[in-house]
């Protein structure tokens, strides 16, 4: 080996990735904790009260990061699934599988906090707004993926079937989004717009971004911890697993 370039392929093997994932996960968890503390402090004590929505608007600092992460994680999952399908790398499919519960939880948080935000602002827990509806459909897509993976006993088949489903889903998401949007405008909806936060003050935006990075770091940490468990489960017969200090009997 020339050693001139850093060999990224080294970490495509579960045996070498496992300790690395542990290190990154630990760092990401600390970053998440730190940013969460800063972000929550900023969003509760530093950010001013909104002149229109009062204190209730503060749920935005949870709601928007969760919604962003829910969409972003689906793309990351599809990316890993595509890599896994094309290059037949086991680890990529494990990453896709590890990300799914986090993505589903983010979608759920976004929907849940959205309902809590909607009640005081619009007077309804749920309106059939384009964004809400497409977020709900995204939640269904996550659940479908998790259910498919759970129903297949053979890991390799589960990986590849899940990958096909994710790729089909990614192609469909823009179609679904625009059809829902068009459907909503045609029906004249509940005549509410989410865009009333466009005149957001800088400090609010900063708090929201800090919270987003906190959620991001959290997702990285949790999914890496989860992928470590998946690796251990699938490679339990491998020699290197039995030699791990935490596995030793």
């Amino acid at each position, binding site marked *: 080996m020339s050693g001139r370039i850093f060999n990224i392929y080294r970490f495509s093997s579960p045996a070498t990735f496992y300790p690395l994932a542990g290190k990154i996960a630990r760092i990401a968890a600390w970053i998440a904790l730190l940013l969460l503390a800063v972000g929550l402090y900023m969003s509760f004590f530093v950010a001013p009260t909104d002149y229109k929505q009062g204190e209730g608007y503060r749920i935005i600092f949870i709601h928007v990061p969760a919604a962003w992460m829910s969409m972003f994680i689906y793309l990351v999952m599809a990316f890993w699934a595509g890599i896994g399908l094309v290059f037949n790398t086991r680890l990529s499919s494990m990453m896709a599988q590890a990300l799914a519960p986090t993505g589903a939880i983010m979608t759920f948080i976004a929907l849940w906090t959205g309902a809590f935000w909607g009640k005081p602002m619009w007077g309804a827990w749920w309106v059939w707004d384009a964004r809400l509806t497409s977020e709900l*459909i995204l939640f*269904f*897509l996550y*659940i*479908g993926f998790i*259910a*498919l993976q759970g*129903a*297949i006993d053979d890991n390799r*088949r589960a990986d*590849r*079937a899940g990958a*096909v*489903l994710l*790729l*089909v*889903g990614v*192609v*469909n998401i823009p*179609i*679904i989004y625009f*059809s*829902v949007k*068009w*459907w909503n405008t*045609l029906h004249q909806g509940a005549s509410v717009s989410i865009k009333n936060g466009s005149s957001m003050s800088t400090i609010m935006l900063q708090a929201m971004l800090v919270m987003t990075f906190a959620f991001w770091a959290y997702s990285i940490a949790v999914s890496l911890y989860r992928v470590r468990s998946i690796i251990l489960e699938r490679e339990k017969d491998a020699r290197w697993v039995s030699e791990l200090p935490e596995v030793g009997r």
Partner: protein
Amino acid sequence: MFDAFRVIIARDLLLAMRRRSDVLTTLFFFVIVVSLFPLGIGPELDTLRLIAPGVFWVAALLASMLALEKLFFVDYQDGALEQMLLAPQPLSILVLGKVFAHWLVTGVPLVLLSPLLGLQYDLSGDTILTMMITLLLGTPALSLIGAIGAALTLGLRGGGVLVSLLVLPLYIPVLIFGAGAVEAEVSGLGGAGHLSMLGAILLLSILAAPLATAAALRISAE
């Protein structure tokens, strides 16, 4: 290649004719679901006219989904599917043939019966015509998209319920534009835009869905 396409269609139609009850089950499921709504909602014709497009389309969605289970399962059980995987012709063409035959058997009867049910909902002639056109454009797209789900869940425990979980979210655009076209026609806006979108979805699924289905079949049958 087109011979194989034709042979597959002829074979599947023949098989369907030999097992006619399967075909009728889907059709009567559609009829019963559509007839249940007035019983649940009430017989006021004004209300029924309003909800008819949605009811018809949701019933068509469910009927098409129920029929999916049989799309590949019999071939999977008796080994015919393996022969198709080994055949020199591209698998996606064979899949397209199978889905087309499946649509002829489960989708077309539904389209043909919809005017009769439309009369039960007191729809006007123009509305019924629009409804038929949307179903004619939409049901093949449903079969094509559904085939992906059917291939992915082939031979799994509880495959039927799983298919609905996978496929129904993907059906949503077809539902929106299908029911939307009828509603737009009723309200006098003209449903041409929706029909074009429905046609676009159909074309896209003809191009892409057989490829994804073929990939899924290879994964499931290996």
